[in-house]
């Protein structure tokens, strides 16, 4: 017996039900969530005094969410939080650590009861631009103008390195505290270089000459990880562009100025770096490797020079040979006609923290932040974290015995003097960062030239500039 097309057999019905269920659930439902209206509020404050500048209730509960990544969470549980408790014995700190900040914190924003204090970092962090655009973050002007913990006659803003407030500002308003002072450059092993009598190159001609020598030794001269860390390389190109054309080159890029990417200095730097592939100075396999894999190769002396920030030494602690000795050299200058000195480096305050505007105790969050900017807490951060990273708090790590790598990056920062450059576009416009990464792999592995690289990213920058739905930032 067979059934005609119009009849439904039991099997067919079940099958269709299964299909309908299978497609409806995963495709659509996971995005939807409900949003409550802004509850807002400071959750009660007391009178503001110089020792309690935000009027935090003494028995306030401060919920602290820490990103459990490269810096771990021990610095919070063993450093920042006990120090806060020492200052406010009646207050309660509710500590949470996670690697997935968005999953933990975003629903709390939707529910209108966000945690007071959040370390928004990692690949699963929330978009700062979006948080600012929707007015979710507490304005930190109040914090920066408050008396500092160590010296009540000094404002907090005067106890941190210059540029810290600006780094976390959006259109001139501070919303984010970037706590860790990071220096970027090109890393090598002191042992490898000393054994071979090599020296960190100062300019582009010297860099190419050194690459040739290293190549002759059977070691890959230079490389970065194309699979997930192409931004380490656009950082190098743009830092060199800034040396050629001055710090404004990067400012124009951040401000989405017309032709900022196709600027002569940027194209010149990109063209230079784009020639490494054809000379055989970069291993084509690196395009498919992750940063940890390439960094491991450097630890095994298979790769000589690697661009990164000064978290690298701590990140690689487990696989670095004892006598390896990380050293940072500034990105090589181009030639004698550069506008900045060859010692110029990119340095930025990194690792973002914010206070939620509509948290139950906004004052508690701000007070926690003020306490973490004390010298004692800042030093605890440097001592406890594996990277022994210096913070933005001036003088907090004086006399601390930094490991060799961080010591060299601190020395490079000091040597750069006023020639310290910085850039923000990747945090402001993630789409532009994505485009720059893709284009950089194309450039560095020899498929396009510097001009095409610049034009491609410029096109994206222009599109972002025109897109009214994207909130724009200026510096």
């Amino acid at each position, binding site marked *: *017996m*067979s*059934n005609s*097309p119009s009849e439904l*057999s039991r*099997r067919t019905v079940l*099958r*269709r039900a299964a*299909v309908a*269920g*299978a*497609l*409806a*659930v995963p*495709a*659509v*439902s*996971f*995005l*939807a*969530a*409900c*949003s409550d*209206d*802004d*509850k807002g509020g400071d959750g009660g404050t007391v009178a503001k005094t110089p020792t309690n500048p935000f009027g935090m209730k003494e028995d306030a509960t401060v919920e602290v969410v820490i990103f459990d990544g490269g810096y771990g969470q021990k610095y919070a549980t063993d450093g920042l939080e006990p120090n806060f408790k020492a200052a406010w014995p009646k207050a309660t700190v509710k500590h949470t650590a996670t690697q997935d900040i*968005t999953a933990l914190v*975003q629903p709390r*924003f*939707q*529910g*209108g009861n966000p945690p007071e204090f959040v370390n928004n970092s990692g*690949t*699963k962090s*929330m*978009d700062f631009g*979006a*948080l600012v655009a*929707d007015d*979710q973050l507490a304005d930190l002007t109040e914090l920066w103008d408050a008396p500092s913990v160590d010296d009540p006659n000094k404002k907090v803003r005067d106890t941190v390195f210059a540029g810290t407030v600006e780094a976390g500002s959006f259109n001139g308003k501070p919303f984010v505290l970037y706590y860790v002072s990071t220096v970027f450059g090109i890393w090598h092993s002191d042992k490898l270089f000393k054994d071979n009598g090599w020296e960190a190159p100062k300019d582009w001609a010297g860099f190419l000459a050194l690459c040739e020598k290293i190549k002759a030794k059977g070691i890959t001269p230079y490389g970065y990880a*194309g*699979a*997930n860390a*192409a931004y380490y390389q656009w950082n190098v190109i743009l830092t060199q562009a800034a040396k050629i054309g001055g710090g404004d080159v990067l400012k124009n890029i951040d401000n989405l100025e017309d032709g900022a990417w196709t600027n002569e200095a940027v194209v010149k730097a990109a063209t230079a770096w784009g020639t490494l592939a054809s000379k055989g100075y970069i*291993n*084509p*396999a*690196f*395009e*498919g*490797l992750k940063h940890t*894999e390439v960094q491991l190769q450097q630890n095994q002396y298979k790769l000589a020079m690697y661009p990164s920030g000064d978290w690298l030494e701590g990140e690689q602690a487990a696989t670095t040979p004892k006598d390896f000795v990380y050293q940072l050299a500034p990105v090589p200058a181009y030639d004698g006609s550069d506008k900045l000195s060859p010692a110029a480096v990119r340095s930025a305050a990194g690792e973002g923290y914010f206070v939620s505007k*509509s948290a139950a105790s906004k004052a508690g969050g701000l007070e926690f932040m003020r306490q973490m900017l004390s010298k004692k807490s800042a030093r605890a951060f440097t001592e406890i974290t594996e990277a022994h990273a210096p913070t933005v708090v001036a003088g907090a790590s004086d006399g601390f015995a930094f490991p060799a790598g961080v010591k060299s990056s601190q020395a490079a920062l000091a040597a750069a003097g006023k020639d310290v450059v910085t850039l923000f576009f990747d945090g402001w416009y993630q*789409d532009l960062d*994505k485009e720059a*990464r*893709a284009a950089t*792999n194309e450039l560095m*592995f020899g498929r396009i030239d510097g001009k095409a690289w610049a034009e491609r990213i410029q096109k994206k920058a222009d599109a972002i500039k025109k897109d009214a*739905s994207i909130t724009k930032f200026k510096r």
Partner: protein
Amino acid sequence: MRHGKYPFVAGFLFLPVLLYVTFVIYPTLRTFYISMTAWRGFSVAPKWIGFDNYKQLFDDDRFWQAITHHLELLVALPLITIAVALFFAFLLNVGGGSKGGVRTGVWGSKFYRVVFFLPQVLAIAIVGVMFQTVYRPDNTGLVNGVLTKLGFDPVALLVNKNTALWAIMFVAIWQAIGFYVVLFSAGMSSIPAEIYEAAELDGATRASLFFRVTLPLLWDTIQVAWVYLGIAAFDFFALINVLAQDGGYGGPDGATTTLATELYYAASKSKLGYASAIGVVLFFLTLTFAALTLRVTKRETIEY
């Protein structure tokens, strides 16, 4: 009709319907609504912008790249998986000739059954991480370790734009085959032995047994497999997220992106309205596909 039948039925249905409405119907409708808004996922209410998200989506090159990849997946993934799984299932169940009137598989078929099914018990993320090592572009990867030993240049399958999608698709097929071998084996075991016996008496070869007997009698099962694999082609995400270049964002340069990948990254950038619009497009594509497949492949079912 007995008194009290409806309250009784309603009592049974209430809970499942409530669950279905809460977790399927409501979120689906809500997604349609959010796709018409600009919303960043915070406590600010979504702002109505009509079809702007869709306009932006249809202007996006990456969206069309993703659609192209779905079409490739839609053809290749079911076709290859079903063909290979059918072949294996045939060998495992009826390919070995008959013993005492019972069809058996080739020698060692019990062992192969376990081998084929093994990838299916591994979590997809583990499979992805495993294949990171298989495909690694230097000589520490499995493929390139062998190639360089044999004196060939290493290949960067995931880096090359022409091979990346196929390399990832291979992993999906490798993992899926075990399940479909079992599915088809179950279907084959319900085909009466007399039919094979009669065909063999008439002098049918193994090939004609397969094409003239097994395939037609298995049509219903194959159709189910096709729909499942088609949906898998639309939902393709996890392997790309683990294996693709650009940190899982469908790289190199969008050469492996899918709608789910675009959706995930839009959502992670707080563009929830845009992400919902992608979700809605995906919903209709999958729905259309399922409806089309069920209509086109409709045949007379043979019952025995």
